[in-house]
């Protein structure tokens, strides 16, 4: 059985935590993602830039009550990529149990 390819961009543990969280909610700002994942500001920023470059995440910078707020949400491509990743990993794990 051929092993399905895994999206390396999503497969990285820190990015997987971020995209999984964004997948189950609608949108969140930087502080929320940090408080939920425990990732530092630099980490989130660097991962989000990579995800944005891949077209998986859209970043909206705005002012809320005169304070800057950066909001992140998944794009349609991002959601589709996660769904594909779930299918791939499920297939991979089911193959593992068949062999075991």
């Amino acid at each position, binding site marked *: 059985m051929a092993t399905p390819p895994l999206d390396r961009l999503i497969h990285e543990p820190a990015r997987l935590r971020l995209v999984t969280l964004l997948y189950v*909610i*609608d949108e*969140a700002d930087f502080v929320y993602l940090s408080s939920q994942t425990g990732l530092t500001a630099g980490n989130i920023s660097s991962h989000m830039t990579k995800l944005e470059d891949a077209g998986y995440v859209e970043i909206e910078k705005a002012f809320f009550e005169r304070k800057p707020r950066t909001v992140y949400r998944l794009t349609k491509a991002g959601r589709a990529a996660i769904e594909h990743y779930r299918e791939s990993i499920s297939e991979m*794990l089911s193959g593992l149990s068949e062999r075991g």
Partner: protein
Amino acid sequence: MSDASELSKIEADAYRSRFDDGLLDLYIGIALLWIGASWMWFEETAAILAVFPALVVTPFVTWRKRFIEERTGYVRFSEPRRRRERRSLVSILVIGEVVLIVGIVAGIVFGQGGNVRDALDWLGPGIIAFIIAIMVGMVAVASTLPRLFAYATLLVVGAVAAASFETNPGTPLLIVGGVVTVWGAVLTTRFVRAHPRVEIT
């Protein structure tokens, strides 16, 4: 992450963590103390005074949202979750209003000219705690917070005790309200210590 139930759990955990601040507990506790004190010391106007906690729901929700966003950030949950939340809030408010109207009508019909205590004697002294237990239970279902189920259970126990020992209807509310307020204060203190205000988002 490969399983849909795991994703639901992640979403449920994220949603539950929005109540770690303890302010909802404080609100419930203080509301119980207020309603309990009204029945204990201002019996004639207790039904009217009981409306006050419902009147401050909207400003409380707005203020709490700002309080937690300053500390743990902004999040918007999925549309189905927000729909469930709205439905629960409307149901709780409708039940609250219905209970209030029934209480006033019962006071007039059974109390011969508005004596609420007579109406209460007819209904039983545990009825107020029991009705509030149902409302807290509904909030527990909406928020999926186990500690709210515990508060609702305490209120039911209080209602049974009030009916058995024929206490003032405010007694179980004051006791449970005190417990919930103290626990809410503990949670809020922990939350504020763990999450200082963040300026840059």
